[in-house]
């Protein structure tokens, strides 16, 4: 009995690897490869946010800032200072983690709406810095000339190889999230979500666990940001504003809280949806909004909840 969920987890990771590996074959042309890459990068950030929100129950409305920090720091390190991309990525992720660590000190004492407000404010401040520090970031017109990704022993020359790299990173992210959540740390985080009083009374150091998961989620977002910068070779502050924070949050909720599959599904669905809606021309944003409303009304458990319900229905039918 004890081994079953672990085997299910292994199976899920295998299925994920197969899906990510086969996805490019289903594409009609290489333009969609870029969409797929974006899906992977968003999914990485969403997976981190899901650890924070879905598992530990802490809402962040400023996660775009960590994504942007990763992107801008690696841009400055590699393009302005001419250091290798590997150094840039390391610096970008570290900067994101460090800022999250400092932000965690005062904000994680706040709960519910107050934490959401504090992270919202943080996101706006970072966005202003990206816009105003023209000398460093290039300001509103953006930062151009970021080198393409090249790591020691791995320099993806085509979009296809970059996709496989992004998909690999995403897969590792899913693996890590699964390993952490299926341990005492994961249980402690879920306990904090359900009842801080009880979690504390069981000897769980709430402040330390909240800080840990906040920094971890910033690492996911920061890493996604660095890869984003080296893929597009151009970043602009408008990509990392409040709208993007809300989008990430919507992906978590739509996918289904506290489920890695949900985070993946939410990110892939919402990132690619505009492409499918393009045929409706000006109506696309209306349909996009309408679909979101319908999803929330009829699938409160998100995509993951819907899948679970369908699976239960199928199994139940077979048993009868």
């Amino acid at each position, binding site marked *: 009995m004890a081994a079953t969920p672990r085997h299910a987890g292994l199976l899920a990771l295998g299925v994920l690897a197969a899906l990510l590996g086969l996805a490019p074959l289903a594409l009609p042309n290489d333009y969609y490869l870029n969409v797929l890459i974006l899906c992977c990068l968003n999914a990485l950030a969403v997976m981190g946010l899901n650890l924070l929100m879905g598992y530990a129950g802490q809402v962040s409305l400023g996660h775009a800032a960590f994504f942007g920090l990763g992107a801008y720091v690696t841009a400055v390190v590699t393009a302005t200072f001419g250091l290798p991309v590997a150094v840039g990525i390391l610096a970008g992720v570290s900067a994101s983690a460090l800022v999250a660590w400092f932000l965690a000190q005062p904000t994680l004492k706040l709960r519910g709406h107050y934490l959401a407000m504090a992270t919202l404010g943080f996101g706006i401040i970072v966005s202003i810095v990206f816009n105003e520090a023209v000398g460093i970031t290039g300001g509103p017109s953006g930062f151009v000339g970021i080198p393409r990704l090249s790591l020691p022993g791995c320099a993806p020359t085509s979009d296809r190889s970059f996709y496989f790299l992004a998909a690999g990173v995403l897969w590792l992210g899913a693996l890590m999230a699964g390993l952490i959540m299926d*341990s005492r*740390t994961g249980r402690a985080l879920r306990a904090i979500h*359900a009842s801080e009083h009880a*979690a504390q009374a069981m*000897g769980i150091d709430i402040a330390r666990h909240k800080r840990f998961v906040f920094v971890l989620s910033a690492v996911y977002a920061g890493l996604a940001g660095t890869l984003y910068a080296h893929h597009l070779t151009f970043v602009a502050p408008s990509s990392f504003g409040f709208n993007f924070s809300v989008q990430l949050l919507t992906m978590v909720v739509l996918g289904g809280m506290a489920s890695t599959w949900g985070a993946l599904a939410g990110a892939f669905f919402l990132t690619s949806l505009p492409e499918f809606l393009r045929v409706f021309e000006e109506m696309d944003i209306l349909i996009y909004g309408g679909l979101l409303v319908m999803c929330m009304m009829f699938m409160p458990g998100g995509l993951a909840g819907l899948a679970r319900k369908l699976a239960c229905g199928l199994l139940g039918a077979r048993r009868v």
Partner: protein
Amino acid sequence: MSVRFGGIQALSEAGLTVRRGEIVSVIGPNGAGKTTLLGVVSGAVRAMGGTVFVDGRDLTGRPVHERAVAGVLRTFQNLEIFSNMTVLENVLTGAHLTAGYSLLDSLLRTRRFRREERRLRGACLAHLDFIGLADRAGDMASELPYGEQRLLELARALAAAPRLLLLDEPAAGMNNAETSGLGSIIRRVRDELDVSVVLVEHDMDLVMEVSDRVTVLNFGHVLAEGSPSAIQENPEVVAAYLGED
């Protein structure tokens, strides 16, 4: 110890001593300060004066989670189970402190991680068996009936290897059969697991049945203290409390 909420004196100079292997009940009318007293011992409520010692260690002013490390565990009057987890996971979370592996161990799935998780599962299933819920281990905790959720809180606290267990109205919402079952469980906790127990309870039959000593609180003061039979005969207590029923 003394506690004040705004202008209200919830506890004044209320003292409580529990010897090793003892079951001490705290009774008193609603608002007498029973739950506040438990809160002070567990660290959830900050006392203005007074001290908390457990096993000779001064825990005064220490945060809640550190007191759990020192062996002070509690259950809650208003149920605080982890409704997003299974019954077994609830108990495993209680065993958080006794898990002997680090985050790195869980990331690398080391032998130590696997050995410890296996040991924890065995121990937690034993705790569930102890309270009679082993057959519900895989169910969601939120699916348990009310009385069993109370027992689950007890098992969760036991998993944390308590020295001193604080039970806040564990029989509330239980029927008679469940309550008498609870009585024998509480005694077995003391006898078999060598845990001292503080019981805050309104069910007088349960209190009189399991307690070694009873402390009566009234308006934040200790009104009386003694053996169950002595308390039942104390005229002051009868007037203040028992007579009301």
